């Protein structure tokens, strides 16, 4: 993005009108539809977009935004075809949608390094936000997003949709109710990173359809390479934390839920990882860390070469292993018990992550994966990343969100953004 363009948008920000969301216009308003903009229209956004198009009586997608013109135009065409109109805006810069008075909520589906800044800009401009996981790239970003969400009275749903799936609801409630007897440990498994293009790479020309400067945003500048952009960003440590923050965010989230740690977290973390020493993809190819909680229960996160993600709860009565598409147990009886209603601990329930968010936009209640919950789960991912980076056991204070005795670890809680971006 050129400086002139940035300055134009800055002036636009200063002149932004008072925003009155659709839900505040009253029943007599011309439209009670929730007006949505999709920011980031790649891989994960396509699923969200198609899901939202399935709620024509509740949602109207009014804009799509992507720094890749081909992608955003394709998404806009999909929306227009579904609505039989030409009304979906297709824009390059997220600030063009966060400043639109007719946008009520945004879906943030960009690479991880953008989640916090776009989320902050959205809530500051009166938008509710669905933020794909991980909530943010760093711990400090997450805390800033929680604070701004509360300050501006917005609803922010974290994209950990396992919270809205019955089997995970059942599992977390079962464990919390003592179904496994005394809980001994939690083991999260995640798939490996599988990207490699060699120990060196040659920069490529930026495609004419891509705004590379805006794609990089707050992350340190580097030249373009086609293998280091869409989707693969998650294996580049300047942009993401690998599979820890990808699949790990889903399953560590259920562990946090089962541990009743949604407002807190572990008190120590240790681990080690195998990090590529050269090449484009720098996130850990093998992950192994363990978080220790105040109740004495450890939750580990490890790479496994075969199979996808899973969370296993191990207690004195046996174990249950829950994945998105499968579940198993040391005894079939445990799974039968787990799925029965009437547990002693009743958790908040959602059967549909999108509908839960849409309901909360109307009710102003906190969604099932509220921003604080998302921040705490993402923090677990970050703690694992930091412990693996430093290779030593770290004490963590979940109240102050700091490492009590490790100044280097504390500096890894955040990072300075490339100009002109900042968390403030």
């Amino acid at each position, binding site marked *: 993005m050129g*400086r002139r363009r940035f300055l134009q948008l800055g002036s636009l920000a200063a002149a932004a009108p008072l925003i009155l969301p659709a839900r505040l216009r009253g029943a007599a308003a011309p439209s009670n539809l929730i007006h949505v903009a999709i920011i980031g229209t790649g891989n994960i956004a396509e699923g969200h977009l198609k899901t939202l198009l399935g709620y024509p009586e509740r949602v109207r997608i009014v804009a799509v935004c992507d720094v890749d013109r081909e992608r955003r135009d394709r998404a806009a065409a999909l929306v227009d075809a579904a609505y039989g109109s030409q009304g979906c805006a297709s824009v390059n810069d997220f600030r063009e949608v966060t400043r639109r008075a007719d946008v009520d909520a945004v879906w943030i589906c960009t690479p991880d390094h953008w989640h916090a800044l776009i989320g902050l800009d959205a809530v500051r401009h009166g938008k509710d936000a669905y933020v794909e996981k991980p909530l943010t790239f760093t711990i400090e970003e997450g805390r800033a997003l929680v604070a701004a969400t509360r300050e501006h009275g917005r609803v922010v749903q974290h994209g950990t949709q396992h919270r809205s799936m019955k089997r995970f609801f059942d599992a977390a409630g079962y464990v919390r109710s003592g179904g496994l007897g005394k809980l001994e440990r939690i083991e999260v498994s995640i798939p490996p990173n599988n990207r490699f293009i060699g120990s060196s790479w040659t920069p490529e020309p930026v495609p004419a359809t891509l705004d590379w400067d805006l794609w990089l945003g707050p992350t340190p500048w580097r030249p373009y390479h086609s293998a280091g952009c869409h989707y693969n960003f998650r294996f580049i440590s300047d942009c993401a934390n690998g599979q820890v923050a990808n699949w790990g965010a889903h399953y560590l989230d259920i562990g946090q839920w089962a541990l009743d740690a949604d407002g807190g977290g572990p008190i120590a973390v240790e681990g080690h990882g195998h990090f590529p*020493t050269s090449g484009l993809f720098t996130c850990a190819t093998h992950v192994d860390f363990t978080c220790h909680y105040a109740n004495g229960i450890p939750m580990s996160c490890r790479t496994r070469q075969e199979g996808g993600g899973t969370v296993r709860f191990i207690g004195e009565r046996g174990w249950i292993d829950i994945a998105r598409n499968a579940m198993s147990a040391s005894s079939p009886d445990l799974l039968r018990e787990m799925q029965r209603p009437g547990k002693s601990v009743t958790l908040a329930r959602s059967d549909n992550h999108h509908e839960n968010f849409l309901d909360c936009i109307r009710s102003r209640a906190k969604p099932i994966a509220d921003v604080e919950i998302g921040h705490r789960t993402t923090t677990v991912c970050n703690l694992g990343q930091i412990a693996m980076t430093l290779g030593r056991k770290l004490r963590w204070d979940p109240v102050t969100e700091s490492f009590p005795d490790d100044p280097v670890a504390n500096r890894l809680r955040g*990072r300075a953004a490339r100009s002109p971006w900042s968390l403030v």
Partner: protein
Amino acid sequence: MVGAEAGPNVDPWSQIVRLEHGGDGSFAAIIREQVGRTPVAGLAKLETQLLRALADPAVTEAGRGFLCSQLALVGSAAAVPALGRLLAVESSADDARVALERIPGPEADAALIAGLSSLSGRRRIGLVGSIGARRSPSARETLSRLAADVGEHAEIRAIATRALALLRPASTGPAA
């Protein structure tokens, strides 16, 4: 952890100044590991090595960025003068700011504020963001001036206004 390219007799500190985007990153990996694994008592020596490499006239743009990213983790007041000089130059300002924003203490506060006299455009906006991110009470006067100055870019005034609301009370010490 050490890359195959880095032979046992090659000094990574002599190679790091030649780091290029897309090139052999194994020397950076060695230094990154040293930064991560060095006990607190050894950080000052490590900082000296980082600063010595940073001062090498042959240091590449990628090398400078990498060295500053490591100073962000272990830099102290001793690193501030060199970083302050880099901050004043547009082409190196972002690299310097990456380090200065994370270095605790009044020296880094002052260096960032001093940088305002040198930078304009997007780098000035980023600099104000860094000053605000530190939440240092010593920046109150500067941020107040920026917030009220109609000659400043609207984004700078907005950042300064938000930063003022985030300032730590004057009685508290620097951020860890």
